[in-house]
């Protein structure tokens, strides 16, 4: 797991290595400076000693200067360590996001279906932030703290070995205390995070359903549901934090005990009651070390804790990074689509490999280049699945799909999809102007191209009536236009690709019948050679097609023209009757 993640460090490797080095430099200075202080205080000892009674001012100047030099060195190390740490951790996070996003772009539809949009967003944002924090702590603290600890011990041994034992004992005690706390607290934290997600889910759901809540006057119910979720979060955060509350005073307590030991033993050594050699100035230094050593241990504990807690985030990121596209690349990709003919032969299809249930079964269908084909059938009959095989959004389970006489799996994917335009059922526009959105179809489209496409999609009139016309800003997700207008823009966007095949997956459902037929007429006039496949709920949208495919429960029930099907096909005529019944009687 770490290996996968660390691959993203890349150009920040140098910073990631230099940062701990600088931090170690700072740590060493932090240990040396108290040592220098000892010398300064030692001069004071001399001053106090009646036998000497004076100070060596040269020494004082020397040590002071040394101390300032070391201080400045520590500061420079600290600043550079900080800068490099910031650079490395932000850069690492940046690369992680980039790698995740880039890999996401290679995902097939099947890959995308594995993740909910919300979870992908969390992974790219919150989870990366968590890992960034953990990484930052590692490079800034995790190396520095042990160095601090070890050099303090070394200095202590130099001053008086016996005192090092005191430190060692304290460190072990503290390590055990922290270990126990962490062991107990981590499971609580895990549960707490779950409860936190649960609370957010309740709030989110209430937000999206607020009209239903208000309509049914269920505010109180929502409130009690939320209070329950918030209460649970409270319970577990209190449980977790209660343990941590013990930690800090415990640490200081251990430090205090160490101080008392140092003072008692130290003063006895100084006076000569027990063997050993420390001066008051050294006692003072040792007391400073005790604070540094214990804070070093605390820091290590904090880092480890953070890494443990962010393990979930790491797992989720790795999943995104390791996901491989389900569409294997052909060995010798074909890069030209000859024409817009389509052939389904013995196609079976299902969304997941394990699934027994075939969404499509025994599909055989030939569509000649330039034909207009309607597909009709009830919800869940497999209409969308059928057409999604043409631009190879999914791969078939059995059989083959050919476009222009070549199996879709043998094409360069971009080439295939450039020639097979698809207007999705759940379609999306992006924030930006209308022109920018339409240019998705063709980046180099001229203004005339854009206007023509808009005209073909019957979008030109309403666009021109918008303030700013083609430069009108659509807002996030295209919220600033109505459903029918959105669909027409999506059609125009697809037309700009000048594809050989265009597929409308129920993409005129919000467009009124008149406009719908106008669009079809325009297509016929402007692009007679384009193969057009139309999925629709309305019979009216498909009745002029060269042929109509009736799907039922994943199988082709019948193929024929409107008139033929009306006579011979039960499903088709049933659908027809449900829509048109009564209308004609009145004419």
């Amino acid at each position, binding site marked *: 797991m770490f290996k996968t993640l660390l691959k993203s460090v890349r150009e920040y490797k140098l910073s990631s290595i230099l940062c701990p080095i600088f931090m170690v430099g700072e740590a060493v200075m932090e240990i040396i400076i108290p040592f220098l202080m000892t010398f300064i205080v030692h001069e004071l000892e001399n001053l106090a000693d009646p036998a000497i009674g004076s100070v060596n001012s040269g020494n004082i100047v020397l040590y002071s200067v040394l101390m300032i030099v070391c201080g400045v060195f520590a500061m420079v190390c600290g600043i550079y360590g900080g800068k490099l740490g910031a650079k490395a951790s932000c850069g690492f996070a940046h690369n992680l996001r980039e790698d995740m*996003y880039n890999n996401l772009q290679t995902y097939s539809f099947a890959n995308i279906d594995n993740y909910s949009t919300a979870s992908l967003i969390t992974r790219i944002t919150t989870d990366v932030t968590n890992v960034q924090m953990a990484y930052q702590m590692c490079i800034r603290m995790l190396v520095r703290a042990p160095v601090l600890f070890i050099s303090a011990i070394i200095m202590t041994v130099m001053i008086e070995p016996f005192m090092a034992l005191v430190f060692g004992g304290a460190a072990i005690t503290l390590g055990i205390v922290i270990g126990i706390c962490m062991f107990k607290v981590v499971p609580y934290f895990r549960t707490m995070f779950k409860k936190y997600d649960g609370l957010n889910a309740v709030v989110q759901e209430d937000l999206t359903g607020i009209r239903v809540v208000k309509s049914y006057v269920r505010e109180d119910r929502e409130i009690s549901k939320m209070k329950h979720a918030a209460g649970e979060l409270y319970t577990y955060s209190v449980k977790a934090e209660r343990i941590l509350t013990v930690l800090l005073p415990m640490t200081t307590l251990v430090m205090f005990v160490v101080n008392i030991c140092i003072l008692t033993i130290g003063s006895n050594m100084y006076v000569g009651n027990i063997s050993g050699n420390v001066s008051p100035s050294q006692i003072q230094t040792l007391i400073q070390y005790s604070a540094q050593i214990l804070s070093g241990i605390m820091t290590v504990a904090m880092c480890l804790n953070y890494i443990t807690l962010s393990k979930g985030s790491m797992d989720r990121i790795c999943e995104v990074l390791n996901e491989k596209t389900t569409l294997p690349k052909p060995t010798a990709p074909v890069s030209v689509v000859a024409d817009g003919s389509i052939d389904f032969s013995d196609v079976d299809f299902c969304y997941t490999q394990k699934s027994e249930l075939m969404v499509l079964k025994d599909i055989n269908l030939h569509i000649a280049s330039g034909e207009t084909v309607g597909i009709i059938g009830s919800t869940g009959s497999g209409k969308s699945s059928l057409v999604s095989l043409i631009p190879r959004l999914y791969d078939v389970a059995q059989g083959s799909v050919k476009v222009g006489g070549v199996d879709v799996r043998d094409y360069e994917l971009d080439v295939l999809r450039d020639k097979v335009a698809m207007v999705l059922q759940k379609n999306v526009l992006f924030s930006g102007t209308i022109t920018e959105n339409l240019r998705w179809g063709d980046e180099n489209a001229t203004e005339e191209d854009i206007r023509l496409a808009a005209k073909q999609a019957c979008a030109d009139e309403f666009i021109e009536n918008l303030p700013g016309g083609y430069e009108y800003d659509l807002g996030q997700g295209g919220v600033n236009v109505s459903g029918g207008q959105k669909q027409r823009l999506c059609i125009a966007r697809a037309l700009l690709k000048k594809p050989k095949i265009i597929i409308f997956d129920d993409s005129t459902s919000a467009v009124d019948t008149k406009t719908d037929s106008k669009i079809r007429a325009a297509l016929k006039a402007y692009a007679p050679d384009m193969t057009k496949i139309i999925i629709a709920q309305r019979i009216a949208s498909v009745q002029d097609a060269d042929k109509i495919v009736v799907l039922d429960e994943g199988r082709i029930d019948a193929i024929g023209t409107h008139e033929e099907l009306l006579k011979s096909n039960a499903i088709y005529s049933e659908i027809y009757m449900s829509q048109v019944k009564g209308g004609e009687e009145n004419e």
Partner: protein
Amino acid sequence: MSNAGIQPRSALKGGKRAKTPMKTLGRVIKYAFSNNKAATAFVFVFVLLASVANVTAASRVSYIIKELIANGANADLNGVVYPNIIFMGCTYLIGSLSSFSYNLIMMYIANGTLLKLREDMFTKMQYLPVKYFDSHTHGDIMSFYTNDVDTMRQLLSQTIPQIISSVITLVAIFVFMLLYSVTLLLVILLILTCSTFMIKFIGGMSAKEYVKHQRALGNLNGYVEEMTEGQKVIKVFCHEQKAREDFKVVNDELNRAGYKANTYAFIMGPVINNIGYLQYVLVAFVGIMIIAVGHSEMGLLSVYTSVWNAGDANRVAVMAGMLVSFLMYSRQFNMPVMQVSQQFSAIVMALAGAERIFEMTDTPSEDKGGNITLTHGECPEGGWAWKKPGADGSFEYIPLKGDIRFNDVTFGYTEDKVILKNISLYAKPGQKIAFVGATGAGKTTITNLINRFYDIQSGEITYDGINIRDIAKPDLRRSLGIVLQDTHLFTGTVMDNIRYGRLDATDEECINAAKLANADSFIRHLPEGYRTIIKGDGSNLSQGQNQLLAIARAMVSECPVLILDEATSSIDTRTEKLIEEGMDKLMEGRTVFVIAHRLSTVRNSKAIMVLDHGVIIERGNHEQLIAQRGNYYQLYTGAFELE
């Protein structure tokens, strides 16, 4: 490459500093502590105890060192050192216990406050007018609950106790140092001024950069949100490369902003620390010089009379010991300064978050409506009735029938843009009224007015002859059943979701409703039938299945008036045909408003209103409108576009 596609969502998603920080801080403090006055007092006492104990204990260390230095190997262990160590041990113990206590109490206060805050926010949110939700994105409202509450957690559980304790510690050390030497204290103050300046500068920069960072993060979130939502579109347009490039722009920007913000935060420590060393050297230097150079000027160093009482030779020793103590204090002095400096950006961010939260909770709730309520079984004729209180305390009962009238209603979401113009219509009890027209013609708006999601600007809407403004809002809404185009289901079992319509409905009633809505068969095919848990907004069901459940939900409620807003838009016409019978049963004896762009759905209505740009341009039943050969006829035959 243009990145105009990336909209800054900063203004809404954080990235702003608090406008009135002090006022907001005051409010946060009041909010957190006013309900926990006793606990707050304890926290104060314990913080005070802990800080003073720690400083006192440290003073004993200095005292012992001083004794050792001043008296050398003749130091008085039993008389001075041991008593001091014991005293120190006691104060340490008190300090630790106090610090444990205040941390524990503060933990409860912080968590309790967050609990209360979340509950208050949510409760408040339930009663906000629909307009609020229409004018704020869900993402923005959600971030109040996540990001903003999180910054408050940081503020309450760490920043505030940290600052209180640091300030008290500073004051305590200050007092101790004052007792030792005024001159040296001046040196310290000089340095303190210097570090305050540095903290202000670096902290200010850091806060500023954090705000920018927050904005960049918001931009990236917004971009990822929008593009991931449209990931499949990216695929069909082979737009992957472009998406990568655009992402790189926002991602690089975030990297830059993060680098700057973090750098400032990380260099604060080393700088303040180093100022601390400088201070140490300066104090030592000045102190030693005074002692060494001029014995007579020692008055500058100490006001302790003991110094003057000691003999000349001893005086130097005492002074030296004192200086050592003072140096130890000066080291301690640096710690709280450092701690406060680290909290700088936390405060800035928390206050901005708090301000956004308060902005929401300060939004006025929707009004409760009039005082006419809905009763069941109270009125002499039995059944449901409106209860109208008279001026003299008596009550008048009006039977609930479901008669809805619009008299000359004009409405616009904003004052200057009229959506509906002079609409008048009536629906007698049991009638089915349909609205047809293009998107944006104002169909949905009409339904938003009946249940008072929005209030009309002029004219009047009556329900059984009562102006709906005089009816208590909850009762008004309870009398209206609604099925919306965007069905919203809630996490819970299928059964729970159907029962949402009427909480006291029995299992049989719910299953019956599901059968009528033609939902029974697919429900039985779910892994656990009616006990299947539906996850977040019914995402594991198809849109059509969601709508069937929503219809079943409406069937369970026994409202005399039903509003069906594109309720069957995702159900294919064949299935719609199948549930027609159920729908007929649902509508039986009820006043129904139907909105649909599928004309087959509205054909059998009592009256059909053709809306265009907020005006009813035609009305009548299907036969009449067809015979009229007007817009409806053209629409019906596909020859005319309403727009």
